[in-house]
């Protein structure tokens, strides 16, 4: 436990002192904020138009009109900004050689992975936390306080973000070059996204359903609509567990090969 905490502290401090986390946070909040602003403007225009016509419903759902599409498009933002957070975690240690001494300390591989993993999650947490005031504002203006579906959406985004980070750490453990790790992460994430489209879902083939279930973005859909389905939670948890476990195995295999 102590080892994980120490490695976590070091890695978190590294994020704090290096520019990459700041750049990622700024770009994320800017893009997220822009999409949010655009959705909200559209929502207010639409509500105004609807109010003019008594035959239309007088209120439209804030969650469905603003947050669901916002959270859905967030998967693309995450896909772009999360791999830079995970790319250096192991690649840099291997490139600079600091991993040599790490391997001679009484630290287990899995402790090393978990420490770094937790530090990267902290940044994800900060990113998501910075978007909360905007959400709060929307509710304030709309005068409704439907927290539930939004919280579900945040849970979904968080799980998806952690999945991206875990895959990124695995790739960083394999690669020795940060840039290569970054590009492979993009490729792998896109692969996990497009896998759902590999076979036409309407073709009626069983394999199409299976592949759709593999898609990493697909599982966010229920969350953004405010539904927490065990199946979706389990998918992300399993995905994260597999990546973290494999990262530790990759480090171990690197030792055996010398």
């Amino acid at each position: 436990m102590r080892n994980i905490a120490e490695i976590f502290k070091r890695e978190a401090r590294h994020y704090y002192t290096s520019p990459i986390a700041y750049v990622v946070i700024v770009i994320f909040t800017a893009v997220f904020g822009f999409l949010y602003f655009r959705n909200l403007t559209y929502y207010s225009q639409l509500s105004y138009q609807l109010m003019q016509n008594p035959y239309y419903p007088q209120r439209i759902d804030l969650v469905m009109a603003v947050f669901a599409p916002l959270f859905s498009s967030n998967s693309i933002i995450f896909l772009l900004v999360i791999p830079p957070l995970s790319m250096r975690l192991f690649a840099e240690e291997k490139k600079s050689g600091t991993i040599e001494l790490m391997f001679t300390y009484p630290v287990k591989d899995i402790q090393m992975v978990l420490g770094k993993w937790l530090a990267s999650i902290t940044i994800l947490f900060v990113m998501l936390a910075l978007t909360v005031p905007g959400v709060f504002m929307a509710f304030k203006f709309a005068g409704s306080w439907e927290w539930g579906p939004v919280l579900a959406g945040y849970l979904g985004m968080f799980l998806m973000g952690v999945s991206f980070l875990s895959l990124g750490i695995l790739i960083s453990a394999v690669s020795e070059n940060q840039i290569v790790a970054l590009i492979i992460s993009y490729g792998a994430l896109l692969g996990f996204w497009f896998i759902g489209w590999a076979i036409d879902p309407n073709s009626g083939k069983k394999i199409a359903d299976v592949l759709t279930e593999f898609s990493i973005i697909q599982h966010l859909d229920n969350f953004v609509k405010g539904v927490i389905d065990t199946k979706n939670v389990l998918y992300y948890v399993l995905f994260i567990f597999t990546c973290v476990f494999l990262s530790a195995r990759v480090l171990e295999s690197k030792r055996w090969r010398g």
Partner: protein
Amino acid sequence: MIKIENVTKMYGPTVAVKDVSFEVEKGEILGFLGPNGAGKTTTMRVITGYFPPTLGNAYVAGHSVLDAPLEVKRRIGYVPETPAMYNDMFVKEYIRYIGALKGVPKSELKSRVDEIIETCALQSVSEKSIGSLSKGFKQRVALGQALVNDPPVLILDEPTSGLDPKQIHEIRSLIKSMEGDRTIILSTHILPEVSMTCSKVVIINEGVIVAADTTENIGRGLTESHQVELTIGGDTARVKDTISGLEGIKSVSSSGNRFIVDSEKDRDLRADIARKVVEGGFDLLEMRSHSMTLEDVFLKLVTEEEGVRQ
């Protein structure tokens, strides 16, 4: 304290070290010699638990690197050849971090770090980042991280390479001061360093151990004759005749008034030669026994090995 048993390490199909075995007793300083690429670093990395051996096993204080790597790692301080440390961290912070990772109890950590800063003379740079330090200071930080958990075993991979003479002297005396308390394996290709600091020598070449003995005895058995170097005043030819007349002398060669006398192995004829020279009425100006230096031994072993192979 340290026991290497038939260790073989392969990188893919390349054999880096082959069937290496040796032991180091508690408190000994072992000099580990060999030309570049001989397998020194590989052997040391096996002992540190950095990677497991392909065949064989290594033990530190009775713990096997294969079965109890964490126990081994707790007892070891390792300074790699080019120590890569976190350049963004400050010296004191770094040593504290490594101390924590190596399991120094929280209550002792602070005093332990201060102690290390003092032992390794890092006071002036303790608040600087490692990346900004000179090579000599970096080496001391590396030594600091190795010593922070007060390990009974130290593995030093060329600890003085790239340092200036003053720094070399400092590091050497630091190592020497630990003799008896810690078991140390020191790899180097600076041979006088070994004669100065080590009590035992292991020479490795192309992955195979070619000699292992105490520093004094390592050359014994390699020499075919006993050599005495003399400076004698007097007629060269007559001196030569006089000495050659002694029993057990194999050959006498001279240049000016300097003579080199080869006698039979394991026979010290110095007293006889001295008497004979003086009795003959010559002036004995200088005499010394010419034993093989570590350098001679090293070169002989390493080049001979190559000769056999060709």
